[in-house]
């Protein structure tokens, strides 16, 4: 087990190294940020001064080393555009994104899991077709379109909900539905397939032969086992919603990390983009690592075969 954890941890570190290198290089392909940093009408010597001030005159390996050092010390650098530490900006927006992501996760659970279970239990019935239609719509209807339609219907026509911004729970309803909708569909599909697989297993047949009530078979024996991959997906979904709800946050003027990333990309704010991507990467890698270790702990075959 110890060896397994060490091996997995090394994989995680390698993944983060590749991610940091990729994001470091990719943002620099978008152009020279000094053009955005220097004052209007700056001469070449002014641009050089700005490059020096922000350390952009140094060779790329040196810049990369500084970037890695910053990450290791918990610093993400200084935003070019806001002239503030990226970590400050990030953690200012994090609670907002967390609020939205948790609400969207709840929505995706409420829609995806029950519908997935019903689809699996009533496979090929009308309920299953309804479930599959919901999944299809969830995966094919873009969140931004759904968001705009919801604004029109629930804010403008019915006047039930505020259009945008952050405030009370009413502000949270539409962005969380628009964001959770897609993830609900993916959860629905996974719950359905996972439940179908479990329902066909021998121990479920045995439980039924023993005369256990259908509800107990489904809820206690089947669902519990089908839940493991669903929860793994939900964890990853949460991280994605937390860090990359760009379009939904822009449409609903939600002051989250996705919108911050959007602003960073358009402003060529290297430290900001790098910082947000690295934070998201670290979250995903750490969650994956924890899940892997948990799996290996629960099922010894995993640590022997991988």
């Amino acid at each position, binding site marked *: 087990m110890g060896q397994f954890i060490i091996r997995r941890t090394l994989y995680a570190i390698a993944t983060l190294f590749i991610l940091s290198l990729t994001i470091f290089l990719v943002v620099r392909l978008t152009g020279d940020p000094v*053009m955005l940093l220097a004052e*209007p009408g700056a001469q070449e010597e002014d641009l050089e001064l700005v490059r020096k001030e922000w350390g952009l005159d140094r060779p790329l390996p040196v810049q990369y080393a500084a970037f890695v050092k910053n990450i290791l010390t918990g610093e993400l650098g200084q935003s070019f555009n806001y002239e503030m530490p990226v970590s400050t900006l990030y953690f200012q927006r994090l609670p907002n994104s967390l609020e939205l992501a948790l609400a969207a996760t709840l929505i995706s659970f409420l829609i995806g899991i029950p519908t997935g279970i019903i689809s699996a239990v009533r496979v090929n019935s009308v309920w299953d077709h309804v479930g599959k239609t919901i999944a299809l719509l969830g995966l094919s209807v873009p969140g931004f379109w759904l968001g705009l339609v919801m604004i029109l219907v629930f804010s403008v026509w019915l006047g039930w909900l505020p259009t945008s911004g952050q405030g009370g729970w009413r502000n949270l309803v539409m962005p969380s539905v628009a964001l959770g909708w897609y993830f609900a569909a993916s959860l629905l599909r996974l719950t359905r397939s996972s439940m179908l697989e479990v329902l066909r297993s021998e121990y479920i047949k045995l439980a039924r032969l023993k005369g256990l009530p259908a509800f107990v078979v489904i809820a206690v024996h089947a669902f519990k086992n089908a839940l493991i991959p669903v929860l793994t997906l939900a964890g990853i979904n949460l991280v994605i919603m937390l860090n990359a709800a760009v379009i939904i946050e822009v449409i609903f003027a939600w002051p989250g990390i996705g919108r911050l990333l959007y602003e960073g990309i358009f402003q060529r704010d290297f430290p900001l983009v790098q910082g947000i991507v690295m934070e998201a990467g670290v979250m995903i890698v750490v969650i994956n690592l924890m899940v892997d270790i948990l799996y290996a702990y629960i099922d010894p075959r995993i640590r022997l075969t991988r």
Partner: protein
Amino acid sequence: MQRDGSHSSRMALGRRSVLAAGAGTLTSLQWGTSTAHAAPAGKVTLAWHTNIAARWLDPQQHDGTASPDNFLMAMHDGLIKNFRDKLYDHTALAERFEFAEDAKSATFWLRSGAKFHDGSPVTPADVQWSYEHYHGAWGEVLREQTQSVEVVDDKTVRFHFKDPFLDFPILFGTANVCGAGWVVPAKYYREVGQSGFLRKPIGAGPYRLVSHEPGVKIEFEAFSDYYRPVGIRQLTMMSIPEAATRVAMLERGEADIIYFVPGELIDRVKNNSKLRLAPVVSGNWWLEFPGFQNPSSPFHDKRVRQAISLAINRDAINDAECGGMGVVDGNWINNDVEYGMEWPKWPYDLNKARQLMAEAGHPSGFNVDWVTPTPNYYSRGERIVSQLQAIGIKSKLQVMERGVFLKRLQGGLKEWPGVQIIFAATRIGGTWSNWYDTHFKCGGFNAKDFFCVKQLDDMFTKYQASYDRSERKRLAEQIQRTMLEEYYFVPVFRHAFVNAIGPRIAASKWQDVFPTITTGYCYPWEDIRLV
């Protein structure tokens, strides 16, 4: 001759100075008893149409565009400024000013009791420091022309110029051109530095900053010591990049004023009896061809540029983008600035355009790498891309965030490799020369090395050196005429910056909320009232 001309010019300037000084006195009298007015009340929310750049709260970093002035007018103040129908010489922090007969100095007398939001008085030393440390648009020009800034006494500050500097008041007082005349508290700025100032800016304007969520929202409250009555107690500016959301906010009453209603949403506002459209005929839009002087550029041939002009259906663009509320005229410079010329509407003739393309050796057209419209009016760029296909010009749309776009403009040709068309737009107040200097002159702020037509630049140098008003007018018109006849720029239309007003705002007509003729924004902010 020149001496006579100079004299005539000086006479004109003298009259203007007297008028300006007189206006200042009137303004002081009119607003001097602000305490007699009702206290500010209520809350107004503006939905701003792009991201909010932090630097727009710092006049020292003015980027020379018509964006910072929306924010500067709320929380800062200048000595003189554009205001309602005054192009640049409304006396604000200065109660009067005098521009010397020889245009070699300008003296400003500060308004008594003018204060910054931290309670400290606005002093000549603040004016001097703000001017000397200004590093935004036109800063280089001002530095080159200025000999010294003299603090005469505790109310008076005088600017001395190396040579007659006729355009000084226009530059100094036009908020959507330059921020050098906008006064920041010197001691505070020195203490906190530029970054600190961005985080917590202090001004002398009608509203003081309460909170600032970078890029998201700015909240202001009325500054009780402002020298004019301030109508609204709380003013909030929110960045709402999505137009449909802005319109929905207005319909719901979550916003009271929204900027930029795009063409496809105009009817929705128009059909709502509670809302009011405010189609401010504003900036001009034109096509420019960076690097057209290079013989390898397809735009080097005048016939190609003319063909493009003939292929643009300007009325269709105006109808689609502004509900027909813009103005299709012929010049790329607004006619509401000094020496801005009237020019007839350009024809739309696809057959002639195709013929010219064939004559120029492009019977099947050619490829353009990118058409880049001024952000965030991307659909306008799409219309250009689509219309140019009629003469075989195949191109792609390039979209950029506004800050990136401006900075790339300022980077010159190296930022625009290949064959490029820029669908440029601006709204600059004051004088035609600001337009030429910024957008066309070799080395200009947003022109850099794009065009560099020596003959015109030489004429412009002569224009700037001249103190003879008739000669200046003649040169100004000659330069504009040449630019248009040679199709160096292809003017498209003068758009209506279509804004909208909600029912809570007191106004008998939309112009009551958008009274300042040099801008598409609704300042003076202190004059906004609720019903």
